[in-house]
């Protein structure tokens, strides 16, 4: 590896593991993968771990917590898709098939840590604790994000791709300047890694040595564009070395591996080792949104192949084999998921109650004369309409 490298901080970190900075920064030779598609634990030498890239198995309790969130996540995805079909919701970008990533992104964080989600990360936001109807506000077609980001330490789900990664860096930087040890998980998709803001965010995080985990769900498509047309890199995790940070690849349908990798990433970041880039290999099982027609750009066979790697079934078999899925546990988990689904059904079946006059209330901290004038004009129209 490069001996002229001036990888200051990375040298310190890699020294702890007795490897070169570049071996620390580059992802492990194989992606981290603890469970096989059928739910069996892989032999240790097949897990992809290696010196400097070691991942102890998560505890049963933690796995069960994650599994419960996963079941809820799947239920929520499918409930929301149904609500869209019924015309109760405007649009929904489902993460069906990616729920293990979503759950791990939220559960790896501790009290006070922040999450920066995209439009596809409903399940992560829910898992972070945001109330179901609040999460879904914008997808109903309301004009605001629906929840208080500061109450949940969870940013609004970002629509303009990649832009939120820089906000994540800013949140971490502010915390660091105040001496708080906040860790931030910033999410984006494979397509989003092509935007300039991705580059700027990773570079800022590395230069300021901030505890940000950039978590990329590589679901193989950006709407219709396959990954092969998005990047020619060996993997997205390989980009880390270009910023002087550590990168890792993980099986994004393997909840156990995700929990292991993300938990360790958060710990490393919190300990001051700088940002990390984690690429999860997963698959978008459904269309981009309900408005998309994925038959136009991919084969059913490809989708079927990934169906066999379903993250829910995989961890379920493992937990079942491990004797953790007692009847009671299963019932409780199902009940929890159903309760959330019911909340969504009930909520969505009520019409949102929005007052158009509010449109002028939050543009500025107090209404400018122009805002007041325009609001008055609208109020007058509404009054005449009602009269």
């Amino acid at each position, binding site marked *: 590896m490069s001996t002229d490298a001036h990888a200051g901080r990375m040298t310190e970190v890699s020294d702890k593991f007795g490897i070169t900075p570049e071996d620390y920064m580059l992802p492990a030779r194989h992606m981290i993968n603890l469970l096989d598609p059928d739910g069996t634990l892989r032999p240790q030498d097949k897990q992809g771990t290696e010196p400097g890239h070691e991942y102890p198995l998560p505890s049963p309790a933690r796995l069960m917590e994650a599994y419960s969130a996963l079941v809820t996540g799947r239920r929520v995805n499918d409930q929301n898709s149904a609500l869209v079909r019924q015309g109760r919701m*405007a649009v929904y970008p489902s993460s069906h098939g990616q729920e293990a990533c979503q759950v791990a992104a939220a559960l790896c964080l501790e009290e006070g840590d922040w999450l920066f989600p995209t439009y596809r990360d409903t399940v992560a936001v829910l898992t972070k604790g945001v109330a179901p109807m609040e999460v879904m506000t914008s997808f109903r*077609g309301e004009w605001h994000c629906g929840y208080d980001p500061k109450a949940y330490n969870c940013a609004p789900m970002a629509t303009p791709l990649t832009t939120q990664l820089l906000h994540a860096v800013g949140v971490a930087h502010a915390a660091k300047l105040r001496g708080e040890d906040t860790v931030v998980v910033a999410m984006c998709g494979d397509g989003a890694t092509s*935007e300039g803001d991705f580059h700027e965010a990773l570079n800022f995080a590395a230069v300021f040595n901030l505890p940000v985990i950039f978590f990329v769900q590589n679901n193989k498509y950006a709407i*219709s*564009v396959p990954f092969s047309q998005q990047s020619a890199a060996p993997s997205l995790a390989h980009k880390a070395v270009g910023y002087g940070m550590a990168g890792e690849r993980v099986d994004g349908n393997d909840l156990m591996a995700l929990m292991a990798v993300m938990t360790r990433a958060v710990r490393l970041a919190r300990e001051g080792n700088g940002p990390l880039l984690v690429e999860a290999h997963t698959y978008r099982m459904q269309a981009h949104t309900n408005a998309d027609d994925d038959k136009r*750009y991919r084969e059913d066979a490809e989708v079927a192949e990934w169906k066999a790697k379903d993250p829910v079934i995989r961890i379920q078999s493992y937990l079942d084999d491990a004797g953790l899925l007692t009847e009671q546990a299963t019932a409780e988990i199902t009940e929890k998921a159903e309760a959330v689904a019911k909340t969504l059904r009930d909520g969505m079946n009520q019409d949102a109650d929005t007052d158009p006059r509010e449109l002028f209330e939050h543009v500025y901290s107090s209404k400018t004369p122009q805002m007041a004038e325009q609001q008055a004009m609208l109020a007058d129209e509404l009054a005449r309409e009602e009269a």
Partner: protein
Amino acid sequence: MTTTTSRVNPNVSDATARAAAKAATENQPVTFGKALNTALADALTAEQSVVIFGEDVGTLGGVFRITDGLTARFGNERCFDTPLAESGIVGMAVGMAMNGMRPVIEMQFDAFAYPAFEQIASHVAKMRNRTQGRLPLPMVIRIPYAGGVGGVEHHCDSSEAYYAHTPGLKVFTPATVADAYLMLREAIDSEDPVVFFEPKKLYWSKEQVNLEELAAQYEAGKAAETEGKARIARAGSDATLITYGPSVSTCMQAAKVAAEEGISLEVIDIRTIVPFDDESVAASVRKTGRAIVVAEAQGFASVASEIVARVQERCFHSLAAPVLRVTGFDIPFPAPTLEKYNLPSVERILDTVDQLQWEA
């Protein structure tokens, strides 16, 4: 028009293309979207240097299907997907135009053109001038824009003012099916960079238009030019509604209702914001003595402001009332539950007509 020797594979002969267009257009009403699609296909056929690219414009045919079928018909070298990066798309187009191509690129939605703003403002707009005319940049940036389709945040901006304010760019926005075809052909054939705004609520609107005939006229140089030529969409005598893009249809409706109430409104469809047709607009307002500018974008420092400023300057002594505006409010676009309160509506236009200080 620049012609370049090209190894790009045309794939299909003119005759086949015409036949396809014919089948598609002869017997049935044509959508605005189909007119744009046909204009792209005809431009690809007419000129080897035309290339189309952007996000999802290849296999998928674009999220609005405006490039539908072009990759299949013309090959992946003429119409292709790029990585997801708007600055990259525009910047690469600049380079391609520098080197003999005529790129036609798509920004997926209005607000997603903003990452490319630097490339557009500092290069697309200025390269010709910077090089004393030696490096013209014939390229078209297509931007679906405006509301009325229930789109969520960032999908409904009317961003034409940013570009209209930037010298060196031309800004077109068609409001009819025929104009969709003709103006896109003109934009592609222009030696200047054109930001081409497509009112997305019109994509599915239909009119009885014979695209084949239009194509033949255009290619024979017999179609009337649209650049810098406003269109009198409806003649009238009492006041002028000056508008463009998605608001033309709203103004037409308003004029219809007003007519029933005995007020005769003239409706002018600007068509090209840059260059602006001062002559037609001023002639109309001098005739009617009253004017309202109608546009969807927030009003402050907008294209509508500019039109008001020009009209009052040129028609001051003919004006019986100040030139008024009906525009979007100065708020972020409130898609979709409340967008109707923000969009210029027939009622709001008619209310404003009432305010034009009519003598008792």
